[in-house]
């Protein structure tokens, strides 16, 4: 067998040769000093993607800083300012691969003042790894991290109970932390909530099992990440195809990426906003005709009838339509340093559609420690999460964010500055 084929296969699940696990995106969240950087460094290191020259640079930097031991956390802090302050202040993306899957880590800071960075990292994540420091117990920050992950619709949460080496690798410490976390998480009904005892520093239960946690029978962190199933949820949703670009050759092709669900040639679809009903005549990529496409695929669609379709329109399942709305309510995370202007002029970007928007009402603040409603009191500032009602000039075609992230999410752009100022999740 050719080497290329072997590596392609190796990157797939060896089970039946075609059962690849593709890509998993996950976010890591922890409070300062919980060991997040060490954990990421450990994942990269033990999966052998930390290459020698990076290691050499880190060793040099470690000795400059005066810390004798190899500091794995130095691998992940990117920008100069952050190196000076010794903290992670933005989202950084890291990559590693195993024989089964490629992983993209969104490494985000844990501090409350960086809530917006965590929201950013969580928006594209399929899974969240929430770190707990076993010596500290369940802190308010950890609750906040779980709640933000939940708010952003993450269905797979792995709680890494770290630093167990400092607690004598005690099963009871782990069990007690787990119980209090489960208790807190219960009302959120997270579909896949997993706990793993570990020492990121010593490498127990991250990639290797290590020799110290014999009482634990579950998967290592890497095994758990490899096992998470993401495709089947997206593909079982109603078909949604936001049109990105229209090619006007002999045959009109509507280009875009399937945002949710699946489509086959011959499928009955409706084009929004016109409401025209037609069928899919062809699905293609670079001249190859495909019989079908599913969530995540970038394709070109041809339709049976001449329909007027442009960027920002949406081709959808004829039997399960999204809601066309000109007013809706949403949870909103404010991202900009300028406070929210209740009468301000904003552009709302939803799928490939951009429309003018304004606030109809700002109802209440959401406490990210408890998810409880709080009165507004003053301006909405950076990192605040609020519940609001919005009105838009042209209809948008939405699904609840909790059901479909792609058609339930939007951003607000300040019309004057072009800054991205808010992230919204439609109810």
């Amino acid at each position, binding site marked *: 067998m*050719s*080497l*290329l084929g072997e*590596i*392609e296969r190796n*990157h797939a699940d060896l089970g039946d040769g*075609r*059962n*690849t696990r*593709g*890509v998993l995106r996950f976010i890591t969240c922890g409070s300062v000093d919980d060991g997040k950087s060490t954990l990421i460094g450990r994942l990269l290191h033990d999966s052998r993607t930390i*290459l020698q*020259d*990076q290691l050499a*640079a880190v060793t040099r930097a470690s000795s400059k800083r005066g810390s004798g031991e190899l500091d794995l956390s130095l691998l992940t802090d*990117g*920008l*100069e*300012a952050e*190196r000076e302050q010794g903290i992670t202040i*933005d*989202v*950084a*993306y890291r*990559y590693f*691969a195993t024989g089964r*899957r*490629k992983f*993209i880590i969104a490494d985000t800071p844990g501090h409350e003042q960086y809530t917006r960075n965590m*929201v*950013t990292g969580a*928006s*594209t994540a399929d899974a969240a790894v929430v770190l707990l420091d076993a010596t500290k117990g369940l802190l308010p920050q950890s609750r906040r991290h779980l709640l933000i992950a939940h708010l952003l619709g993450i269905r797979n949460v792995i709680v890494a109970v770290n630093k167990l080496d400092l607690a004598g690798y005690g099963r009871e410490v782990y069990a007690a932390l787990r119980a209090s976390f489960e208790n807190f998480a219960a009302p959120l009904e997270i579909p896949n909530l997993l706990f793993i005892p570990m020492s990121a520093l010593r490498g127990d239960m991250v990639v290797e099992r290590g020799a110290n946690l014999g009482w634990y029978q579950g998967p290592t962190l890497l095994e758990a990440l490899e096992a998470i199933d993401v*495709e*089947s949820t997206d*593909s079982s949703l109603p078909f949604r195809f936001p049109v*990105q*670009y229209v*090619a006007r*050759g002999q045959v009109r092709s509507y280009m*875009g*990426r399937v945002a949710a669900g699946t489509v086959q040639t011959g499928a009955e679809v409706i084009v929004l906003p016109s409401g025209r009903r037609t069928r899919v005549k062809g699905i293609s*990529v*670079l*001249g190859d005709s495909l019989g079908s496409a*599913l969530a*995540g*695929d*970038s394709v070109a669609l041809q339709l049976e009838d001449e329909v007027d379709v442009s960027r920002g329109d949406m081709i959808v399942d004829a039997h399960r339509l999204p809601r066309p709305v000109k007013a809706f309510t949403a949870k909103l995370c404010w991202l900009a340093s300028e406070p929210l202007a209740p009468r301000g002029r904003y552009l709302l*970007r939803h799928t*490939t559609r951009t429309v003018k928007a304004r606030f109809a009402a700002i109802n209440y603040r959401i406490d990210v420690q408890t998810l409880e409603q709080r009165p507004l009191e003053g301006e909405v500032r950076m990192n605040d999460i609020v519940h609001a009602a919005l009105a838009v000039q042209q209809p948008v075609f939405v699904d609840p964010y909790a059901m479909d*992230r*792609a058609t339930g*999410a*939007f*951003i607000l*752009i300040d019309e004057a500055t*072009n800054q*991205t100022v808010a*992230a919204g999740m439609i109810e």
Partner: protein
Amino acid sequence: MKSDRSHLDWLESEAIYILREVAGEAANPVLFFSGGKDSIVLLRLAEKAFRPGRFPFPLMHIDTGHNFDEVIGFRDARAAELGERLIVRTVEDSIARGTVRLRSADESRNAAQSVTLLEAIAEFGFDAAIGGARRDEEKARAKERVFSFRDEFGQWDPKNQRPELWDLYNARVHKGEHVRVFPISNWTELDIWQYIGREKLEVPSIYYAHRRQVMRRNGYLFAPKPGEQGEELSVRFRTVGDISCTCPVESDAGDVQAIIAETVSSTLTERGATRMDDQTSDASMERRKKEGYF
């Protein structure tokens, strides 16, 4: 339906989506094509995004005048084969205009390239420039956005980047400003070679092992200066930038599969092995990026 998409399918689909977003949102985009492997992959992705139509943007290369002949030849041939317009702007022009002053004729022109690049963007009024940079190349790139805003001076402000959520990219700019767009942000060097293999893409011959006169210095291989006696080794290039600071690595890898095998077991990252100017300090790339470098 059970997905059988591989990681390459996922990366390809994401990149096509990004390219189409540029086409849909920007008024006057351009794609940087150097003849190097990352931009060769970009062109393949553009074909998948837009064929049978033409690309909705021209190609552009900022030529330092210190490029490998093989790469320049490849660049021109590939653009002609695709039937797409190729714009070339040279650092020499900027030197002639007096906007670039070099201390010596053979110094690295990577920094000077930024000046020419920004002049070209201003000349054509481009509001979006698509490039082949990857986040895994270097630490400072790990926090780079997919749509990365540049102010009217072409500067990148790492502390004031636009938040980027879901796949809702913000390409809006005022006149004189632009965005850099990186469709293959999430690819690694290994992904690139696997994709080149899968799509059977041609790359310039110097990516493959060939015999070449080189000098060893500080663990790197250099072209001998006039009068110097080098040795002949089997080498290949992992990147094909400015001749003065791009070093080959010893290798027998004569085809894509052999390169993939080497990449999997490689002990040095791409830039560390081949780019002298990035070695100077941890922060040198970040500084160069702020100044407008790709």
